């Protein structure tokens, strides 16, 4: 019981990271029906940006976090503009394969430019552990959870209250009707990439702080797990992505808790297979027939 509670706490921190990433997948899918497989690599770019500004510019943590979000947002918009926009009217599989290509380009490009070996992320916030009722919670775990929740609430406000946020929902529901309102789909798509990538960049900096180490391939596995989280929650659903992220994080730590550490990744993929078999539209997804 005690171990389970401890792993639940660990799972929530890890789940926050997956949730932030899953939101980007689900928003982009909602608007252009593309699984952006390069999304995990934006998270890596965010982590590297954080690393550089903390290490060489000696900024404080919050500046690193916010600037990583801005840089990642621009990176996301640039990738969309260069790689996906020219394929807007191509078959979906073309864009999907391109996304995988962009992912390889970012991973190997960063390895080539900066080396593939892991780096130590500057520990600008000194870790302190709190002991409550026999459970250990670190200040960094709390920080991750709080930042993730604040960002999710901010995202929800942007989507519900701002003009661009509403336009995003309109494009996701009915792109043709949205155009008839005078909404330029390209602006909405750029905006969506910017929002999703900013969250990924934030997640990258947070994970750097949590795991102390970053490398150019760090986005691969979390990227896929966050994709699973988005599918579990119901791809296209924003609350679904948050819940899915936490569930996957908790599942992963729970697998470790029962002594199956070696299978923690496998457990996530088993969940993907099971969800696709029994609940293909996910927890929050609407079951819709493909329109002809």
């Amino acid at each position, binding site marked *: 019981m005690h171990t389970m509670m401890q792993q639940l706490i660990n799972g929530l921190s890890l789940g926050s990271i997956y949730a932030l990433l899953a939101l980007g997948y689900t928003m982009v899918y909602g608007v252009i029906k593309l699984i952006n497989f390069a999304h995990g690599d934006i998270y890596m770019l965010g982590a590297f940006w954080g690393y550089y500004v903390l290490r060489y510019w000696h900024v404080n943590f919050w500046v690193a976090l916010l600037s990583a979000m801005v840089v990642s947002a621009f990176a996301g918009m640039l990738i969309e503009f260069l790689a996906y926009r020219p394929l807007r009217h191509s078959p979906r599989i073309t864009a999907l394969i391109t996304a995988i290509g962009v992912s390889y380009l970012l991973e190997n490009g960063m390895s080539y430019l900066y080396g593939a070996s892991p780096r130590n992320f500057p520990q600008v916030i000194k870790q302190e552990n709190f002991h409550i009722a026999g459970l250990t919670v670190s200040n960094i775990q709390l920080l991750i959870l709080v930042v993730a929740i604040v960002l999710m609430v901010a995202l929800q406000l942007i989507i519900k209250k701002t*003009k661009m946020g*509403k*336009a995003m*929902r*309109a494009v996701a*529901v*009915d792109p*043709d*009707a*949205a*155009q*008839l*309102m*005078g*909404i*330029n789909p390209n602006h909405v798509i750029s905006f969506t990439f910017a929002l999703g990538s900013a969250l990924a960049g934030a997640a990258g900096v947070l994970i750097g702080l949590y795991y102390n180490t970053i490398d150019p391939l760090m986005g691969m596995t979390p990227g896929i797990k966050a994709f699973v989280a988005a599918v579990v929650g119901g791809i296209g659903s924003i609350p679904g992505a948050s819940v899915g992220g936490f569930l996957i994080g908790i599942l992963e730590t729970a697998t470790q808790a029962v002594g199956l550490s070696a299978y923690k990744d496998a457990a996530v993929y088993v969940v993907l297979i099971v969800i696709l078999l029994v609940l293909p539209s996910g927890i929050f997804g609407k079951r819709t027939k493909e329109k002809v």
Partner: protein
Amino acid sequence: MLKVSNLFVNYGGIQAVRDVNFEVNAGEIVTLIGANGAGKSTILKTISGIMRPKSGLITYNDRAIQNDSAAAIVAAGISQVPEGRHIFAGMTVQENLEMGAFIHKGGTDMAGSFEEIFTQFPVLKERRNQDAATLSGGEQQMLAMARALMARPKLLLLDEPSMGLAPIYIQKVFNIIREINAHGTTVLLIEQNAKQALSIADRAYVLASGEIKMSGTGSELLASQQVQETYLGA
């Protein structure tokens, strides 16, 4: 105001619109009637910039618009109420209307627009915080029309606004089209309900197999034996 010249549009590999010419003058209600598949919707979608013509010219206030983006065409003052309503499900009635006013910047009188719309469509005021998908078909059609009006268009394109509605709403839709026109908005209406459409139209064109077969004033066509036999089932 709107002039369509020698318009050809392909749709799914077939020529859906062939050498179509017609015009809409400021202040008029003009209707295109014709059977299903005659090419009516294709013409409207091409004017709105959702579809591209193969050749031909569409001018709006003497400016060619056939290559403009849909967003630019809305900004120029042409709004479309699409066939099948296409309201934004999962968004409230109010949010749907806000999307209608998307082209207007923050400085415009949104409260005024809402007030006008709610006077014209009281049912939408009652349901403003409801998910638009929960409205009845007739209410959704009201919303689709109100949403298009939020852009304050000078020319309103209506694609089959009475389709699938209960008789009481059909009458309502045609009354509202008259009202909108009386308030100074020019109307281009596409309808399968030819009798009703002709009775409110200043002028009309009959479309078959992508070509214009006849034209005249609404009452002329309503009286024409050929139109009666083919479209009015008389």
